[in-house]
């Protein structure tokens, strides 16, 4: 036995040791990515001398910022409660948060006893291992596609290409069921517990799209926040019930 180091509870281990290491990795790689993203522009403009008027840069910045600023601020916040910090770092460097990282992370933890405990290192480790494989395979496929590109599109019939348009509804079904199921394979009780949150998310997005349209780029965050507010009410009720039970 290694002195009192091993006496940490999983939660203490998570907050004291695991999380700081996750942020060390996350921050370092995000800063590297930032520098390397700016580099091509710096190189082409200042070293190669390709002239681009400053006004054009500013116009592009303004055009993109005006619609993307809501996403920049709200998306990491919306994914964190679900993916945890390591998973969110994956999602916002390797990308494809909702189509690849989310389904993989959910399925990875769905069979664990601790699947609901986001402060347990085990849950994060399962997600990281599966996400690692998803990143590597995605890049390999992408590289192949980019290299053989047009040839592949020419071979595949239109009907096959059109079928890829149905990827997201399929993933949605997978995600909802994975989140509802317990480790013994029961689905309905979990689903009923989750239903209020699903409905509040749907309602929030509908309101943002149809009534409060000026908030449209914050739709995802508003959906998450509303669901969390509903969860807080349910949590308080459960606490009261528990206290009454004592």
């Amino acid at each position, binding site marked *: 036995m290694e002195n009192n180091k091993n006496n940490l509870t999983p939660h203490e281990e998570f907050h004291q040791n695991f999380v700081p290491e996750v942020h060390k990795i*996350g921050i370092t*790689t995000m800063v*590297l*990515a930032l520098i390397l*993203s700016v580099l091509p522009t710096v*190189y082409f403009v200042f070293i190669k001398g*390709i*002239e681009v008027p400053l006004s*054009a840069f500013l116009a592009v910045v303004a*055009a993109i910022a005006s619609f993307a*600023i809501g996403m*920049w601020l709200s998306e990491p916040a919306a*994914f*964190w*409660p*679900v993916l945890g910090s390591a998973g969110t*770092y994956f999602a916002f*460097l390797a*990308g*494809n948060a909702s189509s*690849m990282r989310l*389904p*993989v992370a959910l*399925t990875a933890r769905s069979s664990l006893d601790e699947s*609901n405990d*986001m402060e347990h290192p085990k849950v994060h480790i*399962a997600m*990281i*291992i*599966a996400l*690692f494989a998803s990143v*590597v*395979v*995605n890049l390999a*496929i*992408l590289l192949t*596609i*980019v290299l053989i590109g047009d040839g592949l*599109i020419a071979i595949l019939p239109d009907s096959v*290409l059109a079928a890829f348009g*149905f*990827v997201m*509804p*399929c993933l949605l*079904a*997978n995600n909802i*069921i994975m*989140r509802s*199921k317990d480790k*013994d*394979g029961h689905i309905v009780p979990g689903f009923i*517990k989750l239903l209020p949150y*699903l409905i509040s*998310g*749907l309602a929030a*997005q509908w309101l943002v799209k149809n009534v409060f349209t000026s908030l449209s780029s914050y739709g995802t965050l508003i*959906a*998450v*926040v509303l669901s969390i507010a509903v969860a*807080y009410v349910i949590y308080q009720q459960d606490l009261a019930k528990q206290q009454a039970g004592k």
Partner: protein
Amino acid sequence: MGAVRNLNGEMWMFASLLIIVVVLQAVWFLRLALKYNKKYNYFSKEDVGHLLKLGATSVIGPAFSVVVVAISLIALVGSGLTFMRVGVIGAASYEMMIATIASETIGVQFGTPEFTESVLVLCGFGMAFASIPYFISTPIELVLFDKASRQVGKDKNKPSFMPYLGNAAMMGLMGSFALSYLSKPINWVAFITAGAVVIGIVKYTAKSGKKGLMDWCITIAMLCGMAVAQVVSMMMA
């Protein structure tokens, strides 16, 4: 397409550097996970193999769904810039939109003689700029959230709010996605087919105890959902 041809080689060089960072992050996180796994023996070698297989197979469908848009993006801005952008954060459709915004801002169309090297550099800048703020907002927000969740979890006499928070956030996201992805009736066909397949696999695995099938769950569900929805839509047409 002269501009694209001229700069494509250099774009590939920058693309490779950025992709290396993506791989570096994945490997570094994996090393951390394996280190803790060794310390606490959470997962056997076999379990780790299952998790790897799950991650690897699940992305095949979504990765190919990017193909169509990625190819059109290559036609516009070249393979180097496409790989750089789609491999980092970018969903191909998002990058396509950004590239279009960038070129339209200065009033130039793709594929015309006016699409010079300057315009291509501007497009590349716009696509990078659309993701750069994530590299700043993500670490700041995550550090703050982890600090906050540690405070919340300190009171040991009360059950934690964190599991509620996780469930609510997840389902809030799903509900908000459902609004756009389930707006077309044909998408319900895909949704219900895939859902039925997942339920079938979950029930079968629970009964038989064979975990292996679970690794392929997303892939099988997706293939079935896509195939059935496509056949139905062709029959209706």
